[in-house]
């Protein structure tokens, strides 16, 4: 009987052990600081301004990372309704709602993973709306809850060609954060320490890009699903020596070795796919296994590429932070985004694009304004849109998604 196996062998990445240790150390260090009151803790959106906070001596905690953990452990769907019940709509960011629900219910995946009772209490909350406006409302809830300051950077949106006034504005907004942050730490900004953090962040970005671009090899040495896990240090340890070391000494050499030896992440790789949109955190494994069973490697994604900030420059921290955070895919216009994916096609040579329409994440759901149809026509490759969500599995029909994916691969084989 020639049935399709759903249990394709998964090739584990040896660097995972180091990755796990970095993540564990991050949370232990945070937990210790929360208990002792030193160093100060800043909560920060995942796409900045982490470098500024590190440069000012804060430990930096990323609620989005916690949201992803809640999703990956499938605790989120159970916790979201508690936030809904206090007025936070099921239609807004499910990172926000599951994280607030987690706080209300005093349940966190940190307990099982690290024996840590709760997320660390913030001394200040710092956002950048380049991801979305929801992060501001998310942090505002905690600012009221903990009675701590809330500050942030308000990004420009729908950016085509980047203009000087936009960079100057974002740089100035970063600079304007400094006095309040100095009040919280009780120390003046040390420019040398800021430059060091910016340089570590830049090097992490360059290395992370190299890791991602290793998937241009045929066969690809790893998948989008692997990268979604191994981007952890690029988020939480960005701006630190440990972040650089993880990619420089562990992950990149391993991927390069795989490429050299022709090791395929998906045995018998036949098809290559680009993933546009958020991961479905609670379904990473079944999706990885389904694609592998269909001999299809998801080689690249906008999502993992979103933590490449190689425009950072220690010689000019504020302006380069502004450039790095304004160059981001998510704040750009449709023309830029489509050209970006076209360039990705040239590099990664994929046969199709899967758009994930995440119910609660409009900013990361690029299928909603006709892009799949335009790209399919312009690039000459098919696209598929699956409906789901990053954390709210009530918005995901697994059977329907599986059938759509299987049918899409059948289409590629016609």
């Amino acid at each position, binding site marked *: *009987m020639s*049935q399709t196996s759903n249990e394709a062998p998964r090739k584990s990445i040896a660097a995972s052990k180091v990755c796990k240790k970095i993540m564990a150390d991050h949370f232990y260090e945070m937990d210790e600081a929360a208990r002792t009151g030193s160093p100060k803790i800043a909560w920060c959106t995942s796409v900045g301004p982490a470098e500024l906070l590190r440069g000012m001596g804060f430990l930096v905690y990323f609620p989005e990372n916690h949201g992803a953990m809640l999703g990956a452990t499938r605790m989120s769907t159970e916790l979201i309704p508690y936030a809904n019940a206090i007025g936070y709509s099921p239609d807004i960011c499910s990172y926000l709602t599951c994280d607030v629900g987690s706080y209300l219910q005093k349940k966190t995946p940190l307990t099982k993973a690290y024996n840590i009772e709760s997320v660390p209490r913030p001394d200040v909350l710092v956002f950048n709306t380049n991801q979305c406006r929801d992060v501001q409302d998310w942090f505002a809830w905690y600012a009221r809850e903990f009675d701590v300051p809330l500050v942030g950077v308000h990004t420009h949106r729908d950016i085509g060609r980047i203009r000087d006034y936009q960079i100057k504005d974002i740089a100035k907004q970063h600079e304007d954060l400094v006095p309040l942050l100095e009040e919280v730490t009780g120390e003046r900004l040390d420019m040398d320490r800021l430059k060091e953090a910016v340089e570590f962040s830049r090097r992490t970005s360059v290395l992370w890009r190299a890791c991602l671009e290793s998937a241009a090899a045929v066969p690809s040495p790893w998948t989008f699903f692997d990268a979604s896990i191994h981007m952890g240090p690029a988020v939480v340890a960005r701006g630190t020596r440990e972040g650089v070391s993880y990619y420089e000494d562990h992950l990149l050499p391993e991927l390069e070795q795989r490429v050299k030896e022709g090791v395929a992440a998906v045995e018998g790789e036949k098809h290559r796919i680009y993933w546009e949109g958020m991961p479905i955190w609670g379904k990473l494994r079944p999706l990885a296994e389904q694609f592998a069973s269909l001999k299809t490697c998801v080689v690249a994604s906008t999502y993992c590429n979103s933590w490449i900030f190689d425009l950072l420059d220690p010689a000019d921290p504020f302006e380069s932070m502004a450039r790095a955070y304004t160059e981001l895919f998510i704040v750009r216009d449709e023309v830029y985004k489509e050209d970006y994916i076209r360039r990705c096609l040239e590099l990664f040579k994929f046969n199709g694009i899967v758009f994930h329409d995440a119910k609660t994440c409009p900013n990361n759901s690029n299928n909603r304004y006709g892009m799949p149809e335009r790209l399919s026509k312009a690039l000459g490759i098919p*696209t598929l849109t699956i*409906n789901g969500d990053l954390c709210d599995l009530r918005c995901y029909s697994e*059977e329907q998604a599986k*059938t759509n994916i299987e*049918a899409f691969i*059948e*289409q590629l084989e*016609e």
Partner: protein
Amino acid sequence: MSNDLFIGIDVGASSTKAAVLDRDEYLIGHAVLRSGTDFEGTAAASLAEALAMAGMSGRDGFRCVSTGYGRKNVPFREDTKTEISCHAKGCYKEFPEAITIIDIGGQDNKVIKLDVKGRRLNFKMNRKCAAGTGAFLEEMAMRLAVPLEEMDGLARSAEHMVELGSYCTVFSGTEVLEKIRQGVEAPDLVKGIFLSMIRRVLEMDSLSGRVVMTGGVVAHNPYLVDMVRDIIGHEVLVPEHPQLTGAIGAALFAAAGEDQPHSS
């Protein structure tokens, strides 16, 4: 050993369809049973019924491909294909030209576009929302206390069109209750329900080439086809066995893969 028969089993959310093709790919037996909760048992029963219709018995000498939601629950299959591929294959066999297939099933809708050579250009399934599916029709029939099999006749006898604006099945149900309260006649309401279904399907994708409609809902409610024709302003093609298209497509895949190992 060569295969004499090619079997397609389409285990759908509402019904299970079996199609038996001979070596010349003629349909010589078929069956439709409620899927129920025992997919394996229903698949076997539908096969037995279809084989009996074909004047055959036993399970030797055939090659089977299964499709539909329960495609992995057919123990005697050689292979599986998604219902998207099978509907495409089944329709193109009957209408070998560039077509847009609209399939209205019990739990989902599909819009599939094929080029003139039968290659799939793209496909879309409805989101997990039930609007526009057979489940929507069942829900509305229940609200109106009208037997499902009478819905088509009622819609045909309508004298006025009723607009149901809501996307959501529950909200549509509330709208229907409101219309009942206002004294709207049942035939007009049923026609409005049909129109709502058609709108939900037509907004899934644009149409290209000739339009083919398939699926159990279409088989039992042919007035839907007339309404689609009137809305789009073009003729709508319907296969001889609209509910069996997926099963026939699966059987055609079985025929195409007959050189591969079989399970007998």
